[in-house]
Every structure is written in C-alpha cells, then in structure tokens.
C-alpha cells in the first residue's frame, strides 16, 4: 500500500498547491514535497526486495489487483519496486523537492500552477518507476508528457512554444512506435499470457513462448519489436541522432524544469530500455550489440563535440547530457554486472550531477540574466559560493574520483571492458573513454571564461552572491554526489542484486 499512498499523496499535494495563492505556492509545494521524500526514504529503509521484479524475483511493496477485464488480456494494477527502481524513486522525490526550491527565484508568475504541475509530474514519474503492468506503466509514461509540455510552454524562454511542441511531438511519436512494437510482442505471445503484467510477459518470452505474428517468424518479430521499442525509448534518452529536441527543450525550459528533464525524465528512457529491451529480449539485444554500441559511442563523442561548440552554458550542459546518456547505453549493451549495474548507477549519478549543473547555471543566470560564455568573466569574484559548487559539480561531471560520476563511469568502463557480447567491445569502450577528455575540455574552458579571470560584465545587473535558498539545493546535491561517490554501495548492492538475473538469461530464440 505504501506505493499507492506515495503516489496518491503526491497527486494530492499537486491539487492543494494548485489552489494555494501564488504568494505561498512555492513554500507550500516545498513543504508538501517533503512528504514523498520521507515516504521514499521510508520505503528505502523498509526495502526487502530480492532479485529482478520482472524475472521471478520478489518485488517490495507489491500490489496486484485486477483493474480491467477486457477480452483476453486482463489489465492489472501491479506496482512494486526492486533494486533498479528503488534508487530512481529516491532520486525522483529528492530532485523534485530541490527543483521546487530552486524555482522560488526564477518563477515569478502563475506560481501555484507551476508548482502544482511540478508535483503532478512527480506523481506520474513515481508511477512510471513503480508500475509493473504495461498498461499502468503506459498511462503514467504518457501522463508525464502533459505537465512537461505546459512547464516548457508556459514558463519557458522566448521560443518556448516551438520547444514545447517539438518535445511533445517527438516523444509522442516515439511512444506510439514503442507501443506498436510492444503490442506486436504481446500478440506474438498469444495465449501464453493472460495479462499485460510485465513479469508475466518477460517470463513468457524467456520460456520461448513467442510465436510468429503478421507473417513474421518469432525471431523476426523479436527483432522488429526490439527495434521499434529501442527507437521509442532512444528518443527519450536521447541517443544521437534522435536528440535534437533536447537542446531546444532545455534552453527554453526554466531552470527547475531543466533539472527535472535532465535529472529524471531522461532516465525514463534508459530505465525503460533496461526493463523492456534488455530484460525481455536479451538475445536480440546481444545480436544487435554492434549497432547499439556504435550508437552509444556516437552519442558520447558527438554529444561532447556539440557541447564543445556551444557558447550558451545551458546548451553546454544539455549536450553533455547526450554524452552521459551514451555511457548508459554502452553499459547496458555490455551485459556484465558492472556494465548494466553501472549504467543503472549512472542514471542516479547523472540525475544528481546534471541537476546540480543546471541549477548552478540557473543561479548564475538569475543574477546575470545571461548564459552566454562570452558575456561575462570572473563571476567567481562576486559569487564565490555558487562558483565553488559549480566547479565541484563540473569536476564530478568529468569523473573526479570520490564523486558519483566517477563511480558510475568506472563501473561502466570496467563492465564494458569485461564484456563478451562482441570482440570489438574494448575498442568501443576505449573510444567512449575519449569522451571524458572532451568533457573536461569544454567544462574547463567554459568555467575558465565565465568564473575566473578579471571580473567583467556588460549588463546592468548587480552581481552579488545568490540568496541562501538558491544555493542550498546546490549544496545538497553536491553533498549527495560526494556521499554516493564515496560509498556507491548504498545503491550499487541493490542494483546488482536486481541486475544479475538479467545477465543469467539464456537465449530463447
């Protein structure tokens, strides 16, 4: 029941915030958002799952009741968490709360709607990460788009309408393709399943129940479904070359929304890839190892190169997300305990660090009203605390040891080198590692230009240290990054527990 309570409380918080007067909305949303934080921490403390929820492991806090009986396949309200989803739930609640605090300064109109939508989005995100029935999961998955569309479209920058509609169209088409891919799998399974529960489907696939459908043999159907789902999720991740909605959305979105977008929404894509493609169709995934590894390395390098070419701080961070997500894909396709586990860990680590980076850029923007590298220099002089945390976060991004980013990337590289999916894997890994050099290059370059050197600023604004409530979320994120970097085991143990069953899967086709 605690999952239902968690989601319901968050929805309720959204409703309450929606009717609170604008003046108090930010504070109210912050106070209310602490409830899901505490709830998720309580869940973490009570967490007793073992194994992978889809592969016969026992999920924690599981509820399974029939929701709709419709023809052959029942729809269940099935929710539960395992080692893959638990860290993401904690990430979601904490990051939402911090994003809400970081929105106090930049959001100056229609606050109650803004904060209400943030909480509404959080509720749906929690649903995405806990749902274990395809239908329930899909409802939440789609429902995340609606608040995001408004958050970008209403409170965004000058080209917000374009960015919002681009985001909406890209991800919606992707969802449609993914939906078709998955449903064709369901039809291929025919009578061997009686509901759309993901564990049931995953186990039926594992047992080799997949038959042909629409003139395709079982193997061909698996490939087609894999490609359709991969495409659908790759847009969300995003994997190059499907990433073009991301910079637009990030640049136009207000800072707190960027934090959510980079911190949690991108992880929906990688989480779904892991849950669907790599867990349900492992053999097909292995057979596509070469193109997937190519895409992963292309995302890493191309994203980093694009970041290198930007003058807008926010664009730099946005493109570097493409690069970081490439590592996740590389880790997933490695199919080793450190690869897949590291990829899952990277989802959390990147959520924290990219959130930190976007917030830091936002805090600087709040004061300077510009994000252009060329418009300022020596800001560290006037905003030492912000600049300090920004630099620390950037080093985390570059993979400084004892920070979460280092642990994640180390796991991924270790896993990818050990990988046996194909012989050339070390080559790809080596190429991907080169991405780190570029990351270091553009981040150091950007910081050197903006933060250090003699103070110069052309605008009319007084540059002073940001208020406490702007800096506090940054400090919390930095702290969490370090904690997670020093002892990654607080998440990595449960992640590995859930990931290992995936690696033991044999080929069914």
């Amino acid at each position: 029941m605690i999952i239902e309570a968690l989601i319901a409380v968050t929805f309720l918080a959204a409703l309450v915030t929606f009717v609170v007067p604008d003046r108090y909305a930010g504070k109210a949303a912050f106070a209310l958002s602490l409830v899901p934080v505490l709830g998720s921490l309580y869940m973490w403390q009570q967490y007793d799952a073992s194994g992978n929820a889809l592969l016969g492991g026992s999920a924690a806090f599981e509820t399974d009741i029939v929701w709709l009986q419709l023809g052959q396949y029942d729809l269940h309200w099935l929710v539960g968490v395992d080692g893959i989803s638990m860290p993401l739930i904690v990430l979601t609640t904490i990051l939402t709360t911090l994003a809400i605090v970081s929105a106090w300064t930049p959001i100056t109109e229609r606050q109650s709607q803004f904060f209400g939508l943030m909480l509404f989005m959080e509720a749906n995100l929690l649903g995405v990460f806990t749902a274990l029935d395809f239908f329930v999961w899909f409802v939440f998955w789609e429902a995340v788009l609606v608040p995001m569309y408004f958050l970008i479209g209403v409170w965004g920058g000058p080209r917000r309408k374009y960015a919002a509609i681009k985001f909406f169209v890209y991800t919606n088409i992707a969802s449609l393709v993914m939906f078709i891919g998955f449903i064709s799998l369901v039809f291929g399974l025919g009578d061997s399943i009686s509901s759309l529960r993901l564990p049931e489907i995953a186990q039926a696939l594992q047992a080799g129940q997949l038959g042909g459908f629409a003139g395709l043999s079982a193997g061909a159907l698996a490939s087609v479904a894999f490609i359709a789902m991969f495409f659908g999720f790759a847009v969300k991740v995003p994997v190059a070359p499907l990433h073009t909605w991301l910079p637009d959305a990030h640049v136009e979105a207000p800072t707190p929304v960027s934090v959510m977008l980079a911190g949690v929404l991108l992880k929906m894509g990688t989480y779904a890839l892991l849950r669907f493609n790599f867990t349900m169709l492992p053999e097909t995934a292995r057979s596509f190892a070469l193109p997937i590894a190519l895409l992963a390395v292309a995302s890493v390098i191309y994203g980093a190169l694009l970041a290198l070419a930007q003058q807008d701080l926010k664009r730099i961070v946005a493109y570097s997300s493409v690069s970081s997500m490439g590592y996740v894909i590389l880790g997933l396709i490695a199919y080793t305990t450190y690869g897949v586990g590291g990829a899952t860990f990277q989802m959390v680590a990147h959520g924290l660090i990219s959130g930190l980076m976007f917030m830091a850029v936002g805090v600087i923007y709040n004061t300077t009203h510009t994000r252009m590298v060329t418009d300022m220099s020596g800001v560290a002089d006037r905003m030492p605390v912000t600049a300090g945390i920004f630099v620390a976060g950037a080093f985390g991004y570059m993979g400084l040891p004892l920070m979460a980013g280092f642990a994640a990337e180390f796991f991924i590289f270790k896993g990818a080198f050990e990988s046996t999916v194909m012989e050339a894997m070390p080559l790809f890994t080596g190429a991907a590692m080169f991405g780190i050099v570029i990351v270091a290059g553009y981040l150091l370059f950007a910081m050197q230009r903006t933060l250090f050197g003699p103070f110069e600023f052309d605008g009319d604004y007084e540059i002073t240290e940001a208020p406490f409530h702007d800096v506090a979320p940054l400090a919390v994120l930095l702290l969490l990054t370090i904690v997670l970097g020093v002892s990654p085991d607080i998440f990595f143990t449960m992640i590995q527990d859930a990931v290992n069953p995936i690696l033991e899967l044999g080929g069914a086709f």
Partner: protein
Amino acid sequence: MTPLQTAPVWTAAAPAIILAATALLLLTIDTIDPDTTNNGLLATTATLGSLAAGGVAAWFLMAGTGMESTGGAISLYGDALIVDGMSLFFTLIFTSVAAMVSVASYDYLADEQYQGEFYSLVLLAATGMTLMAMSNSLATVFVSLELASLPSYALVAFLKKNRGSVEAGLKYFLIGALSSAVFAFGISLVYAVTGSLVLPDIAAGLSGADELVGVLGLGVLMIAGGFAFKTASVPFHFWAPEAYEGAPAPISAFLSSASKAAGFAVAFRVFTVAFPLGTISSLGPGGIDWSLLFAILAVVTMTLGNFAAATQQNVKRMLAYSSIGHAGYALIGLAAITVDGGAANGNVLGASMAHLLVYGFMNTGAFLFIAMVEKWGIGRTFEDYNGIASKAPIAATAMTVFMFSLAGLPPFGGFVSKYALFYSAIESGFWWLAAVGAMNSALSLFYYSRVVKAMWIEEPAKSLEIGSQPVGLYGAVVFAAVGTVLLLPGFQPVIETAQTVAAALF
C-alpha cells in the same frame, strides 16, 4: 422483475415516467407563475428530476432489472416497450447529461425569458430519448424519436433574437423533417416485407423475405439513414455543425451527447434485434450486410469529422465536428459485428456503449465550458481563448481534461474507453477499423491541443476580462471533469455492465 417484487410491472418504466412527470411539473410551475424569474426553482426541479430518474436507472441496473439474473427483459404495453439492461444503461447517460445541462442552464438562462419552457423541453426531450432506448417496435421508435426531436428543434432556436440560433433551428428542423420522412418510409417498406413492427417479430418475418430482399434492403437503408441523422453520422451529418454552433451551448452539449447516444441506443437495438446479421445477410442473392455499411460509414464519419475539425477557427464548431468524429468511433460498435462473432459481438457493442457514457461526460463538459465562455462574452475563435487559464485556472483545467480525454490521452476516461473500443474491434477481427480509429485519434490531438495551447500558453489579449464566476456552470463543468478523470480507475464496472447488457441483445 422490478426490484420491488410486488410492484406492478409498469414501474419498470419508472425512469421515463419520472422524467415525463418532471417535465409536466415544470410546465405546471410555469402555468401558475407564467413570468417567473425564479430560475433557481426551475433549474433545481429539472436537475432533481433528472437525478431521480438516473438514480432509479442505476438502482435498477444494480438490482438486475430486466436482465437475465432476474428473469430477462420486461416487455410493456404489448411489446411496444422493453426494459432491459441496455435501456437502463443508456437512460443513465441521458439523465446524467440532462442533469449537468440543467445545472449549467441556471446561469446560462439567467437573463433570458421563457425559462419554464426551456427546462420542460429539455426534460421532454430526455423522456423521448429514454423511450427511444426502450422502444421495441418501429412504431414506438418513430414516436419517441419525434418526442426527442421536436423539443430539440425548439431548443436550438431558443435564443430567438439571435440570428445564428434561429437559422440553426430552421436548418435542424428541415433536415430533421426530411430524415423523419425517409425513416418513416423505411419503416413502411420493412413492414410491407415482414408484416410486423415489433422488432423480434420482424426478425421472425425475415425468413420469408427472400423474394422481396430488394425492398427490404431499401427499407433497411432508409432506416439506417434516419439513425445517421440522429447520431450526426455521414451522410446526414451536415446539420450538426450549424445546429451545435448556433444553439445555446448547453443545448449543444445536450444534443451532441445525449441525443447522439439516443440515436445509437435505438440503432443498436433495431439492427441487432430486428435485423440479426446472421439471418439478414443470408437472404436472397447477396443478402443485406449492414455491418459492411456501418463499417464504411464509421471510417468516413470519423475521418471526415476529424479532418473538418482540424480546419476550424471557431472552437464550438471544432467541437461540433469532433462530435461527428466520435459518432464514427461509436459506429464501430455496429460495424464490427460479425455473423459468427459470438461473445465478441457483445463485447464490441458494449465497448461502444461504454465509450458513449464516457463521451457523455467529456463532451458535455467541453460544451458547457463553451457556455461559460459565451457567458463571459469572450469570443468564439481559438485566438479569443488566449490566456483564459490565467484568469480562470479551474475552468481551464477542466477544459484541458476534456480536450485530452477526447483526444484519448491518458490519464483520463477517454483513453481507456477508446482502448476498450479499439481492442474489442481487433478482437472481432476488424483490426483495420481499429487502425483507422487510432490514426484518427492521433490526428485529433492536433486540434484538441490547440484549445489547450491557446488557454495556457498564449498571452492573453489586453482586453481579456472575465466578469462573473457562474456557480452553476462551474459546478457542472467541474463535476464533468471529475467524472472524466474517475472513469479511468472506475472503468471496470462500466465496461462490465455495458458488455453484459449488450451481450443480452444477441
């Protein structure tokens, strides 16, 4: 049996009787105090009457009145009327829409004359619709169809100083009269061939109609035309945009939700009971395959409705065309019926009925929002809607729910009802019909989201002023929105009831 075992059998028609009595009561109030300005009394009476009828229908449904569990359908007045699960289910749709419309009209009519007439006409039309759902004979079908239609003509033209309203009323009346004539002619042809007007007897009389299959076919076609008029389907749809746009918005809501559902109620019953596909498609050379006819009509109707809606500049007119599109979805219920469908037939028909129920909430709500906007005097085009959300966030949220639900986006009732409908169509083997429906559904997101975008994202015009906060309209709109949302988690009882009662028809 009725829930009260000792009650006389006519009490099974209680929902219709309550509606008719309320209509008469409203007329009585009007007679006692002809120029009454006590709008509250009238609106309350009409609402309570609708709710009472709906409550009784819901009670009957739960008690199993007229269903197999209590001894099967109850037939009244020499088989002229029948009370079964389907008639009760549709009664529930009509009465809930009538209640929302009555509540909303409290504000909408505040400055109008002839309020007593308005409410009694609404209730009379609702009575006619309830009787339509109960009709078991082509004669009662025709009479109740007229009882539903004649008040509607007057209601559309209710704003008699408004040229648009009067013009719409006239157009609606002329096309309605024409289609009534066609419908009556169709009935006479069927009577000539089968020798009966009672639906089951018509089915029995079909077996001897081999030689007259051409006449019968013409009759069936004409009857289908009459239904197409009532449900605003192609090819008798062209009155709908005019009538819905010109009519007072609560009446547009009433017509496009309840009146449309009534057309479907009677079409479902007549075609499945009087012209069972198994019998009629094996008659003479070629037979009469009405499911193919409805399949074509469904595809054309939904596509035409959606494409026309996408090109509109006027929000009310866009909703009118979207309503045509939804008639196309609901037609899938008839189109996907097959000769040897078995349980799948009841499933797809039931899914269509469930969709009509959800549609009753989301579409009524959308039109009532338009009523609110008309009350504010903002304007009619998408541009006029710019920035409404900044002035009236609650109403705009409700409208957003309606738009996304109509488009079939989660997490709203329209998503799951469309899913059930398309899924049932696939189960019946009509995957191409489901595919066309799904594509149309995806297209519809374009024009529905334009309303949302205008309300929330566009900057409001400088002159945008929202005067009053009409309580009744707000209440009705919020009620419809809550209903639309709750129908997602609560869809199971709806679909289960609908499919059970639909299965009883076969």
